[in-house]
């Protein structure tokens, strides 16, 4: 079949012979097929059974070959690349130092209000004058964060065009043009193939460059959509008048008023506040709202009560403050600036590709130089030898690989987006796969970011509430009269309400107005006892004392449900110990009993236990007020309390926690079996952090911290050997005092680590510490405080829903559903793409050998050229493409999430082992297959192998038209050239056929093809497509032969001159 395809243009009368050719070719096929079977011992006997045998021998392939492989020729290139990568690592290890500004930036909180006013030329009542405000606005600029310098589109485009792998192809193209220039300068009619090759290479780079550019542009568009375009408003007082202006126009010295629900427009020095609480979680990571007041409570501006920060939220209450900083000078602005100042390192895949380029270049240069020397020794001119050198180097460039890699990465990025991982940078797709440490934020990522009632204590017993997102968890006994009382207190002594218009939503999804813990209570009661609104309507509120930090309780007085009962009901909740102090009785099974010591002790135990779970515990009590003292219509005075708040009846405890997400424990378990260390880094309290860590398995069951061991053995902490504890919880203040060595020691020796109360800087230190130990670190986070760490990490993962814009900008990947479990999917996809890229590359590289050996033998032993340049391009950019890409669709091998993360220093994408198998083994087999069909074609036409050696000079001499073959017949130039092109086609088809086997060999790394199966539909399609394309290229009249002849006439013009010299 291969025979006739070449002739189809000029001759149609050869058909009679074709079937015999098909026979001889099929012999060569079966040879090459069976040879491709990696198991040598088997293939000897299976020559005739070629197809059925290779699946048999596959499993043994990897073991056998892996253990024994390294090709000699590589040592040079290896060492080359090694030295290069080492010099690179030098430049990377620049240590990061923090600007000291964060801790020393503000002193306003320590000044008195008057001083502050003086400093900003403002007035505590009147505010700034309009003129002053305008002046300051011009001086300081608008109050907004300078967006990080966006890279111009054309630079992004150029990066795609000239980054990484493209460089290799560009070099190849330039060499081609160079070779063409040399030829053009020295010959009248230069050979066109170097020019064509150069053009094709350039086109390939440009096309794939455009492709990946548009791919990234797409994901950055999604990024844009995250940005909140609604302009923020702020209420300022200027010249004594309240006015609403754009938050951007706020200037230092402005008097600003904020109320619950507002976003704070700038850094404020609070001058007056009424029950004001702010949510600083995006800045400090603390999930609980913090109250604000005019008094300075701490030297550290981040801790003091009288400063409210830009872009945090006011949760409730009102406050008035003087603006002390705007825009980039705010705390938030400084962190954002810090982030953009950080350099993120190269992605692992970029390093891998760099390493790959070194390897390939090494091999290419080594081969090129060797054959350059050989060519010179064989008597070629210098110029010819240089052309050969360039030819060999270029022939080593895998033209199709760039496109394959890009398409593979894009496919995976799309697949990840479907699973809620949006990848901003294509190369980051693989990074997750090589991740060995994940530093996860707690709030929102591991937890639901929603306070929920977790436990209750009544009837001297701890009851567990259902904390799952879908209410699938355990329930408790709700029949007890004590529970009814507790629920009533929790419902009444509660200011939280559901926002209007959410009746259709499930209770847990509804938005509430009010404090997080009150909302948790509200939802809990609504779930178990029905409408809280009705309860409140039945028990009208008469008086109320809101929570304050001195009393540590909140109380309200209500009418009772029973219209005949004129007594008032006093309900109170607050810090459990304070509540207990006020109680003399306790409800057990609905009956009031005196509070005895035994009861107090069991209360203490319950309180300690719940507190130890990291839960926030509230105590509840009530009192039916005696009608004689407090008759109907009694005027309760809340400011000057004129009623009893003592000798109440204790009802119970309720404890709340931000519960872990349902899928997280499983995901953490998967990470662990995948050899990934999960570290929790949070701004929250150590106890809470530890409780959640235990809940999700970051601290696994049975593992103890040093403190746990100490308390179990009843010895001081200092006597415990730290090596005994696998887990540890480290407080931010302790972290501050650790030296680098101690830090390394902790990271190395503890498998389960929780960092609590950490600041943004410390987060960064933790990430750097892990990287110093050689880990590839993924960091998740949502707040602004996380963004430096996100940027520094090998892969930063931001939260799509709760994440701040700054964090999203700093991250490489965005979890659209904020779920930690999505990361695990990402890890799996990342590992899969690494495996599949490896397979793709092995597949693509293999055909390099059968492509380059014909040229080498052409030079060295002077046989007619077995494979032409255009045919090589047909393989690299034609038939090999779809099968190579189809390997990206290959399903994961069984152990993908059970093995350790790859070691970035040893487990390279392309290593000597891969090259050894691809080039040294399979490639050689393929080359032999190709040469066999080449010799068959020539021998059957009369040129036996014995006369081929050295025939090239006459063969390519256009003036020699009576070249004698082995039988004594004489050939004209054109006649033998047609036979030569038939050889090219036969060689080409042989490569296509051996690539069938190769794609099946490359399909699996560890599994056998039987375990893996042939379920990859794209791969099966690829096999057919490859074959159809090969048939099309071979049989279609006009497209193959003409080009070949024109080009080869040029190609051999040069040798023709040489021969006739």
């Amino acid at each position, binding site marked *: 079949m291969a*025979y006739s395809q070449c002739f189809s243009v*000029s*001759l149609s009368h*050869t058909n009679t*012979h074709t079937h*015999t050719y098909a026979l*001889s070719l099929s*012999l*060569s096929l079966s*040879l090459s097929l069976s*040879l491709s079977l990696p198991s*040598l011992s088997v293939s*000897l006997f299976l020559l005739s059974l070629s197809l059925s045998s290779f699946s048999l021998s596959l499993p043994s392939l990897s073991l056998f070959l892996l253990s*024994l*492989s*390294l090709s*000699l020729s590589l*040592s040079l290139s*290896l*060492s080359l690349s*090694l*030295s290069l990568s*080492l*010099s690179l*690592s*030098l430049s990377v*290890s620049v240590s990061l130092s923090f600007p000291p500004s964060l801790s020393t930036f503000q002193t306003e909180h320590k000044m008195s209000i008057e001083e502050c006013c003086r400093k900003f030329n403002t007035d505590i009542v009147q505010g700034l004058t309009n003129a002053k405000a305008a002046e300051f606005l011009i001086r300081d600029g608008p109050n907004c964060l300078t967006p990080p310098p966006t890279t111009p589109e054309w630079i992004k485009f150029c990066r795609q065009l000239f980054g990484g792998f493209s460089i290799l192809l560009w070099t190849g193209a330039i060499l081609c043009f160079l070779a063409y220039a040399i030829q053009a300068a020295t010959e009248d009619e230069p050979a066109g193939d170097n020019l064509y090759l150069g053009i094709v290479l350039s086109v390939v780079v440009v096309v794939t460059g455009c492709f990946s550019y548009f791919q990234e542009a797409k994901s950055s568009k999604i990024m844009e959509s995250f940005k909140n375009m609604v302009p923020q408003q702020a209420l300022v007082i200027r010249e004594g008048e309240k006015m609403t202006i754009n938050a951007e126009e706020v200037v230092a010295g402005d008097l600003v008023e904020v109320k619950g629900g507002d976003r704070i427009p700038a850094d404020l020095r609070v001058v007056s506040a009424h029950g004001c609480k702010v949510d600083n979680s995006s800045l400090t990571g603390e999930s609980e709202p913090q109250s604000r007041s005019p008094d300075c409570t701490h030297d550290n501006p981040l801790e003091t009560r009288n400063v409210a920060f830009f872009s945090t939220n006011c949760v409730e209450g009102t406050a008035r403050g003087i603006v002390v900083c705007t825009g980039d000078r705010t705390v938030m602005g400084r962190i954002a600036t810090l982030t953009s100042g950080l350099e993120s390192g190269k992605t692992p895949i970029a390093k891998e590709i760099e390493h790959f380029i070194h390897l390939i270049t090494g091999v290419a240069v080594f081969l090129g130089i060797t054959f350059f020397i050989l060519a010179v020794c064989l008597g070629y001119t210098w110029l010819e030898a240089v052309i050969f050198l360039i030819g060999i180097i270029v022939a080593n460039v895998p033209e199709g690989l760039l496109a394959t890699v890009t398409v593979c990465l894009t496919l995976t990025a799309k697949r990840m987006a479907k699973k809620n991982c949006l990848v901003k940078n294509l190369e980051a797709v693989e990074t997750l796969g090589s991740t060995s440490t994940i530093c996860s934020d707690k709030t929102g990522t591991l937890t639901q970011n929603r306070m929920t009632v977790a436990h209750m204590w009544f009837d001297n017993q701890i009851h567990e509430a259902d904390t799952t997102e879908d209410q699938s968890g355990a329930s408790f006994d709700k029949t007890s009269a004590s529970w009814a009382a507790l629920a009533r207190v929790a419902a009444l002594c509660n200011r939280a309400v559901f926002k209007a218009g959410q009746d259709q939503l499930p209770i847990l999804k509804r938005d509430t107005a009010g404090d997080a813990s009150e909302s948790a209570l509200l939802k809990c009661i609504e779930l178990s006892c029905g409408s809280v609104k009705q309860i409140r309507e039945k028990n009208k509120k008469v008086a109320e004392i809101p929570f304050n930090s001195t009393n540590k309780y909140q109380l309200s007085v209500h009418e009772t449900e029973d219209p005949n009962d004129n007594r008032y009901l006093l309900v109170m909740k607050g810090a459990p110990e304070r509540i207990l102090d006020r109680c003399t009785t306790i409800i057990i099974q609905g009956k009031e009993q005196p509070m005895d010591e035994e009861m107090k002790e069991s209360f203490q135990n319950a309180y300690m236990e719940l507190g130890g779970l990291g839960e926030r515990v509230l105590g509840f009590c009530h009192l039916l007020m005696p009608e004689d003292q407090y008759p109907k219509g009694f005027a309760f005075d809340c400011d000057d309390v004129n009623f009893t708040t003592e000798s109440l009846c204790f009802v119970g405890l309720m404890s709340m926690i931000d519960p872990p997400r349902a899928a997280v424990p499983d995901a953490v378990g998967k990470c662990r079996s995948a050899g990934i260390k999960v570290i929790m880094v949070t701004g929250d309290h150590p106890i809470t952090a530890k409780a959640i860590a235990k809940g999700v398995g970051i601290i696994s069951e049975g593992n103890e911290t040093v403190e746990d061991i100490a308390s179990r053995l009843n010895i001081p902490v200092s006597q415990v050997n730290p090596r005994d504890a696998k887990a540890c919880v480290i407080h931010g203040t302790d972290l501050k005092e650790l030296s680098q060595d101690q830090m390394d020691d902790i990271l190395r020796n503890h498998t389960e680590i929780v960092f609590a109360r950490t600041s943004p800087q410390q987060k960064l230190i933790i990430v750097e510490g892990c990287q110093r130990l050689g880990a590839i670190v993924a960091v998740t986070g949502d707040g602004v405080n996380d963004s430096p760490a996100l940027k520094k990490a090998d892969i930063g993962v931001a939260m799509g829903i709760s994440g701040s814009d700054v964090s999203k900008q700093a991250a490489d990947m965005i979890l659209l559903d904020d779920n930690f479990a999505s990361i695990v999917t990402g890890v799996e996809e990342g590992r899969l793409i690494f495996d599949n890229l490896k397979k793709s590359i092995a597949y693509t590289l293999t055909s390099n050998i059968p492509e380059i050996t014909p040229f080498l033998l052409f030079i060295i032993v002077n046989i007619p050229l077995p494979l032409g340049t255009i045919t090589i391009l047909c393989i690299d950019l034609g038939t090999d493409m779809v099968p190579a890409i189809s390997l990206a669709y290959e399903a994961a091998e069984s152990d993908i999430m059970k093995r350790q993360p790859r070691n970035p220093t040893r487990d390279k994408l392309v290593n000597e082992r891969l090259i050894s198998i691809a080039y040294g*083994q399979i490639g*050689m*087999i393929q080359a*032999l297959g190709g*040469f*066999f069909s080449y*010799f068959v074609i020539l*021998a*059957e*036409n*009369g040129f*036996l*192998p014995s006369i081929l050696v050295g025939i090239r000079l006459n063969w390519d001499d*256009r*003036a020699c*038209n*009576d070249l*004698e*073959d*082995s*039988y*004594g*017949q*004489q*050939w*004209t*130039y*054109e*006649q033998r050239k*047609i*036979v030569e092109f038939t050889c090219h086609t036969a060689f080409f088809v042989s490569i296509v056929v051996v690539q069938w086997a190769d794609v099946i060999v490359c399909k699996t790394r560890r599994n056998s093809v039987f375990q893996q199966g042939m379920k990859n539909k794209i791969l099966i399609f690829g096999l057919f497509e490859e074959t159809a394309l090969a048939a099309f290229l071979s049989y279609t009249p006009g497209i193959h032969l003409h080009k070949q002849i024109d080009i080869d006439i040029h190609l051999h013009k040069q040798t*023709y001159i040489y021969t*006739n010299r």
Partner: protein
Amino acid sequence: MAKDAEKSTWKDFIWNSRTREFCGRTGSSWGLILLFYLVFYIFLAGMFCLTMYVMLQTLDDYKPTWQDRLGTPGMMIRPRGKAMEISYNTTNTETWDMYIKTLDNFLSPYNNSLQAEKNEECTPDQYFVQADSGDVKNNPKRSCQFNRTFLEKCSGLDDHTYGYQAGKPCIIIKLNRVIGMLPGKDGQAPFVTCGAKRYKVGKDEWKEDSDKIGEVEYYPENGTFNLMYYPYYGKKAQVNYSQPLVAIKFLNITLNEDINIECRIISNNIPPGSVRDKFAGKVSFKLRINTKG
């Protein structure tokens, strides 16, 4: 510190004296790898040789499997000149001396004495068929004499300069050997005819030098290839085969000018060759004879 580490790593990589590793591997590891590759490549080579041997066994010793490329036999001239250009100066012996030598060498096997010794006289104008009888090969096959004297004035026997000195050069034309080819049917022998070649001088502008060629003489008479020299049975069966020749002599060609000449075979049995192939059934060359010093 990083620099030191790099240095030592680099040195360690080549020769790590601690682990006795060369390029990251110990001696035994390298040995195993080399052994593996040695065995592997020996096996591959053996496999390849085996398949090649099997393939060669399928071939016939006397006739190639396919000859369809050779449907139209090629033609060639002697002397070949430099890229089919024969140019010389009559006054300068050195410029044509090499042509004389080429022709002398080429014609020496045709010396009458040699021909008489090795080959036999055949019946002219009919094919000299020596069929095999079934599997019994009729070998070696005999060949017909082609005596040098058949070329008369171009034999180089009378005029050992083949007319080059006189500006009346001889060119010898031969038809490529093709096993089993019968170049004419109905007893009509193929013959050579030479004329001017049309050649391109510009876009859509053609030129030919027919008026400059002058008179041409053919030896043997009419420039025929006698049928008795066909069919050819191949190098192995017909060891002493003498390829028939036709000589042409230009009697009064225009001097000091490039002249493009094309000779073709005229036969009722040879298909016209491909347009692309300039040497299938025809041969063209350029002749330039200078007379001025």
